[in-house]
């Protein structure tokens, strides 16, 4: 079965979805993504998670940057803010600071997150803002028609690397672990059942949860992060993996050849909003 003939995940599951009541979380706009794009299964995963967790849709906000990935808010029926390239996390921090009750989901691409937005992740992580960051990693700039991203593999030919990319990619999982994120996981758009469980867990976590989602760009990357290649490279985390052991998580994250999916690391510490409340208590304040 060639890649382009691969059925779109949304169609696969349509019947099941309809029965589950998850359609409530889908917007009336059809995704403008290319047929076969990995992103479809992320929409499905988020609606699944909302349904599972019984989130009232007006109490959830999806914040995004700019990119194919960042069109996401238009395709779910939650409150949404499609912001600027790279600024999803600071905007999401503002939303959460304003209203403790909201479930805030931040979404964006690898360029959005690790190129122009690269300065914000460490701060969202250190503050432990209680939001979920879904990073759509297709290893390329999709919306601008296929340029190199900081997560592009060595050797990828793109319009801005016409003689093949020679820079080593960043290691996003090691970085986010080093930042002190309190929940770090990885999933793959081609494993939708696992993906939706991971999304659910990430949203359930209190604090900053980072889920790295490998997802093929079927239009602009025919050689590197394809369904075929990722299918071969993705593995499960070792069964004995201890998600409270940061060094073990870093060790797993270090392997960029064979890509482990699952929960790398989790810890519990006060969220930013909890910190605000402590501050108010110290100051003897109250509304």
């Amino acid at each position, binding site marked *: 079965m060639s890649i382009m003939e691969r059925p779109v995940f949304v169609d696969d599951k349509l019947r099941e979805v309809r029965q589950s009541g998850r359609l409530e979380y889908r*917007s009336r*706009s059809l995704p403008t993504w290319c047929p076969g794009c990995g992103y479809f299964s992320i929409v499905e995963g988020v609606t699944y998670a909302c349904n599972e967790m019984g989130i*009232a*849709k*007006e*109490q*959830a*906000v*999806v*914040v995004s940057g*700019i990119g194919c990935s960042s069109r996401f*808010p*238009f395709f779910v*029926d*939650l*409150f*949404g*803010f*499609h*912001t*600027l390239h790279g*600024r999803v996390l*600071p*905007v*999401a*921090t*503002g*939303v*959460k*600071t*304003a*209203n403790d*009750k*909201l479930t805030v989901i931040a979404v964006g691409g690898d360029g959005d997150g690790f190129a122009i937005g690269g*300065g*914000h992740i*460490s*701060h969202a992580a250190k*503050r432990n803002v209680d939001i979920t960051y879904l990073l759509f990693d297709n290893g390329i700039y999709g919306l601008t028609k296929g340029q190199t991203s900081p997560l592009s593999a060595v050797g990828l030919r793109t319009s801005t690397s016409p003689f093949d990319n020679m820079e080593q990619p960043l290691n996003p999982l090691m970085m986010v672990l080093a930042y002190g994120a309190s929940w770090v996981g990885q999933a793959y758009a081609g494993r939708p059942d696992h993906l939706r469980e991971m999304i659910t867990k990430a949203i359930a976590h209190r604090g900053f949860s980072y889920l790295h989602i490998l997802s093929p760009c079927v239009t602009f990357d025919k050689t590197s992060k394809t369904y075929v290649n990722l299918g071969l490279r993705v593995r499960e985390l070792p069964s004995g993996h201890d998600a409270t052991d940061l060094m073990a998580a870093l060790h797993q994250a270090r392997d960029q050849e064979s890509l482990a999916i699952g929960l790398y690391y989790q810890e519990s510490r006060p969220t*930013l909003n909890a910190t*605000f409340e402590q*501050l*108010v208590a*110290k*100051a*003897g*304040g*109250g*509304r």
Partner: protein
Amino acid sequence: MKATDIQIALCGSAGDGTIAAGDILRNAVARAGYRVISFDVYPPEIRGFGKCISRVRITTEQSYALKRQSDVFVSLDDSHAIPHVGEVRPDGAVIFESQPVATVAEGHHISGHIHPGHIPYGIPLRELSEKSTGGGRSRNLVVLGYIAGLLGLAPEHFLSIIEKKFTKQGSEVVSRNQAGFHAGFQAGTATFKLDNVFFTPLGTPHGSEQVVMLSGNAAVAQGCMDAHLDTFFGYPITPATSIMERLAVALPKRGARLLQTEDEISAMAASIGAGFAGARAATATSGPGLALMSEMIGLATMAEVPCVVFVSQRGGPSTGMPTKTEQSDLNAALYGSPGDSQHIVIAPTNVEGCYRCAGKAFEMAERYQTPVIVLLDLYLSNRYETVTLAVSGPPFNLNANKPRPRLEAGEVYKRYALTDDGISPRAIPGDAGCMHVITGLEHNELGRPSDQEEMHAAMSRKRHDKLLGALQHPDFTVSKRFGDPGRVKVGLLSWGSTFGECLEAMFMAQAEGIPCAAMKVVMLAPFPVQPVADFMADCDVVLVPECNYEGQFAHLVQGILAKPVVRLSRVPGSPMPVEAILGEVRRLARGAVTAIAS
């Protein structure tokens, strides 16, 4: 009986406690019921022995600017003071150390520089300090006491301000400094007064208002608190930092939240996120930070999210002169965001205006669903003035944010509905039935991306037209004319901190018999076209004094009205000298030069 109008200047080096003395002085006289305006000059370095000057103008009714000439001048360090001694008015007093520690080279003692018309008061400051406190470090308090004694101010307010100021450093420091003050006070009362500087007693204050002394930044913080700011996001930068520093203490006490972000982009982004979620949100910065925020401000314009940005200008371009004042970020505040991205820009002209603009900015941001930039500058941020606050409570509408659309059953919620006044029903996350997605892309009434020609034209019109409502915003002075009514020879058209100097110059010109008027423009965008056009029509020639090189406000006025003004664009790094304005007014009144476009 003549009203009080006394300006006292204290000059010394960073280690002399000059600024501290000025602070005690202005607080004490304010507490006594006088009106004050005061501005300090610091050295740019963190450490060192740079020049410090604290100037305090004390009046019966609130004044608008410092005077060109001081009535009383104090030297705590002759090397710094000598170049400034000329600023004392004829018959004014110069107070200095009569017994320097070491012998001073010829020409290096201030007594050799005092003008013939000045009244010199040499007093043994160090000796008095040592005798009364056991050390020389209280010279600044000795001199304060001396001034109080000489001019006949009661010591009580000084003593309580000294106590308040030094109480953290322990009771010993308090009583040492009070002793220094007393020693000076006795010396002052014992001095035979030769100058003609007088304090006249005050009437009793009205009960319906409360007078406090605030710096511009403190007034902004107070305005934010009184407008019930929910969230503040900021990144330190001179001269805006103290807004955040004050709110960092005040907000948690009211259960509200402040976050120091990783940069200005984030500060702006988080403010917009909070505004989207329904909170009153603000940030504060200076020119360099404004540049970084400009893309985000454009997003707020497009997505119609309320947010307030305080911008305190300093010398530019680039890092420029961080500790000097300037009014050169007007262009960036008006035009910094790409696209047709007009938003509201207001600039207070005095400290009381800082308070009012701060509070009103939130009303406007929420009513017109737009970013509001409040333009200050270092001179305004750091200067102190007595401010009158209504005892009846803050004059701000706390509900501008509140009205939510109520939908009829089956009605579809349109976040960007095209309405008559351009203002659409705004809902926030949590409002069931009003689900929507906002975006920086051009969009249709529902908020869905659209790049159709008609939609873009309609939305562009909406985004601009809705702002016009701000020109009629309730209880807000958009522009105001002062001085002679009717036709005048010279009109002064001004904005921001320089307006106080314009008023002073206008009063002086009027006293010289020049028919003269002045208009302050507080709202710079949208522009109050009609009032300014009317004003200009009344003036033979219009002079625009401003502290920048390019004449940015003059360019704005000409761009909108297509009529020439005369520019007085200067970049002294300090307030525009009143005499520079007055000189131009005189020149123009003589008709030596008629209006030219440059």
